[in-house]
């Protein structure tokens, strides 16, 4: 989808709130959990009872630092906490502790890709600047009880650590935003700093959308919020872009309805927390301080795992597969593991396996809307089919047939199906010879066409032979025989 027409350009910026994957909350020792009984994961501090004070969770600091390093950010050695004041029932203190003035990380880059081009098989790489990463508290949840016109408050989520990742508006459409979010999800999951499940609210994305004519100032921003999947995000953003274009074309002006705060009021320094200091190396840390009280960048850097971009490159180099295949392998949950498991168990080369995984497996998974983990055919089962083919026991077209059969009846093995339906390769060359002869004799026109130069017609004859043999003839042999007969 291109969003640049001759008259308007669209601009999309994202704010991502990622729930930190930790045992306890950002400033209190209550448990972080999903779908627990209401208000059971709430400490006195979370309920904002007078006399309680925030105590920073070391794990959250490490998570923010690790995420910052993975996104090529500058980590601020000194960062500050602030209070952002606003009144809402799910914010019992009346303020949220955040890092507005001086956040923990700034100036990073997120490099993402999506499959573009006409056939959607070219890996298009883009990047978006990360303005900053800040630590902040999550709010509780409010549920509306329409029957009694009440708002019910559950504070289980209040105080959970969030990393707010603010991106510069470097994107221009829903597809780019969705691809960026997907890459962010993969990075955070690889780091273990956030589990990234959008449906469970672990990763929340707000998009700011505006349009303008080339050369003009950017237009009014509207916000797209509360999206629960990357796909819906793309749709919602594109819809909003279209809606704004329609408004402008009809002579109207785009109204901003959501923002009541200008984003600059309501802040004050958090007086109960001194500045957060992180150190480059153990040598630069203050002497005589316990290691548990010091976050050292060098150590965090050492613990950085393999990032998705590196993994994609490794797959291309190790298996000799195309970048777009590697992209899909890493992008789809579980697909890379599946692929590697098949490669391990079969003698077929990785390039053959990737074809099966991309076409046969993905085809049926998408058709039936299943995830890789729900595939009725295990990697071992697929490996068996490929081995039968490699051994010459079945032809390639029969192998595909066996795959389809096995999908429907996963309890059986490939060998069983081959035996039951008599799909074994016909090796009797006299039999094949006879069938080829029969086909050649009954199609003199085609034979003539081949003899006069139209080699493509040979495929038709091959098709007929395969029909006779129900696909069980070795295609290489058939082709050789037919070519000989029609020369």
């Amino acid at each position: 989808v291109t969003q640049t027409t001759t008259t308007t350009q669209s601009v999309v910026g994202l704010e991502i709130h990622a729930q930190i994957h930790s045992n306890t909350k950002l400033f209190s020792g209550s448990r972080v959990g999903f779908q627990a009984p209401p208000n059971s994961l709430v400490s006195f501090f979370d309920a904002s009872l007078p006399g309680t004070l925030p105590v920073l969770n070391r794990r959250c600091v490490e998570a923010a630092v690790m995420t910052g390093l993975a996104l090529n950010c500058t980590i601020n050695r000194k960062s500050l906490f602030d209070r952002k004041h606003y009144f809402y029932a799910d914010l019992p203190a009346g303020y949220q502790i955040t890092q507005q003035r001086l956040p923990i990380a700034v100036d990073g880059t997120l490099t993402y890709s999506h499959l573009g081009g006409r056939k959607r098989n070219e890996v298009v790489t883009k990047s978006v600047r990360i303005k900053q990463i800040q630590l902040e508290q999550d709010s509780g949840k409010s549920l509306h009880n329409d029957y009694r016109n009440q708002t019910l408050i559950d504070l289980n989520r209040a105080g959970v650590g969030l990393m707010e990742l603010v991106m510069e508006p470097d994107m221009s459409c829903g597809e780019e935003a969705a691809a960026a979010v997907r890459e962010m999800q993969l990075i955070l999951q690889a780091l273990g700093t956030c589990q990234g499940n959008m449906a469970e609210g672990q990763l929340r994305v707000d998009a700011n959308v505006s349009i303008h004519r080339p050369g003009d100032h950017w237009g009014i921003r509207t916000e797209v919020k509360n999206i629960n999947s990357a796909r819906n995000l793309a749709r919602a953003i594109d819809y909003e872009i279209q809606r704004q274009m329609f408004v402008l074309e009809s002579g109207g002006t785009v109204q901003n309805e959501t923002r009541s705060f200008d984003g600059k009021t309501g802040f004050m320094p958090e007086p109960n927390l001194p500045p957060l200091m992180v150190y480059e190396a153990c040598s630069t840390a203050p002497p005589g301080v316990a290691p548990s009280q010091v976050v050292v960048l060098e150590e965090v850097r050492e613990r950085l795992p393999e990032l998705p971009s590196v993994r994609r490159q490794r797959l291309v180099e190790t298996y000799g597969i195309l970048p777009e295949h590697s992209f899909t392998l890493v992008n789809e949950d579980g697909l890379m593991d599946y692929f590697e498991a098949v490669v391990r168990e079969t003698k077929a080369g990785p390039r053959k396996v990737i074809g099966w995984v991309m076409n046969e497996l993905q085809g049926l998974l998408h058709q039936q809307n299943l995830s890789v983990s729900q595939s009725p055919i295990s990697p071992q089962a697929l490996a068996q089919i490929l081995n039968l083919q490699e051994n010459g026991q079945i032809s390639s077209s029969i192998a595909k047939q066996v795959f389809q059969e096995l999908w429907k009846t996963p309890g059986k093995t490939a060998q069983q199906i081959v035996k039951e339906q008599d799909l074994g390769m016909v090796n009797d060359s006299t039999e094949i010879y006879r069938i080829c002869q029969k086909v050649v004799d009954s199609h003199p026109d085609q034979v003539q066409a081949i003899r006069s130069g139209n080699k493509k017609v040979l495929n038709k004859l091959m098709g007929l032979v395969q029909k006779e043999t129900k696909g069980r003839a070795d295609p290489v042999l058939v082709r050789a025989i037919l070519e000989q007969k029609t020369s």
Partner: protein
Amino acid sequence: MYVVVNYTRRLQTLAFNLGPSRYQGVTRASITSQDRKSKQNLSCFRWTHLITLVHQYSTRISNSKPCQVPVDLVDKLERLALVDFRNQEGLACLEKAIRFADQLHVVDTDGVDPMDSVLEERALYLREDAVAEGDCAEELLQLSKNTVEEYFVAPPGNIPLPKREERAAMFKHAEF
């Protein structure tokens, strides 16, 4: 007057501007349940912010003359701080408070970094990520007047400040 007495204590929050208070209902409820003296504190709190906002405008608009606070500004301040002070005494009090605050400008702060807290040179304690609290829903819910099946109950939505005309009718018997 209580405003002036507590004012000096609040001067350290001069950088603070109160954002729009959207949830009038909850504010009042939460304050009365927490602290007996809080109603007084709340008014001071809000006064401080009124003063802060006016101060910003007054230094920008006119430098050291006794300032006339423009009607638009008064309106905005009332909306932001939810305090009704649209009368002679209120405005006079406000202007006196601004004069008082202006004394801060006498201090030369060139080359001095602003201080957030007297404790800001201390090391920030980092806690281990182990569960040590929570699991006290019953205790917490007892603190609330109104609960439904282990949820706290709050009034729905935010109650905005009524329009000027409506407010005049509502508050004609109230002190500022």
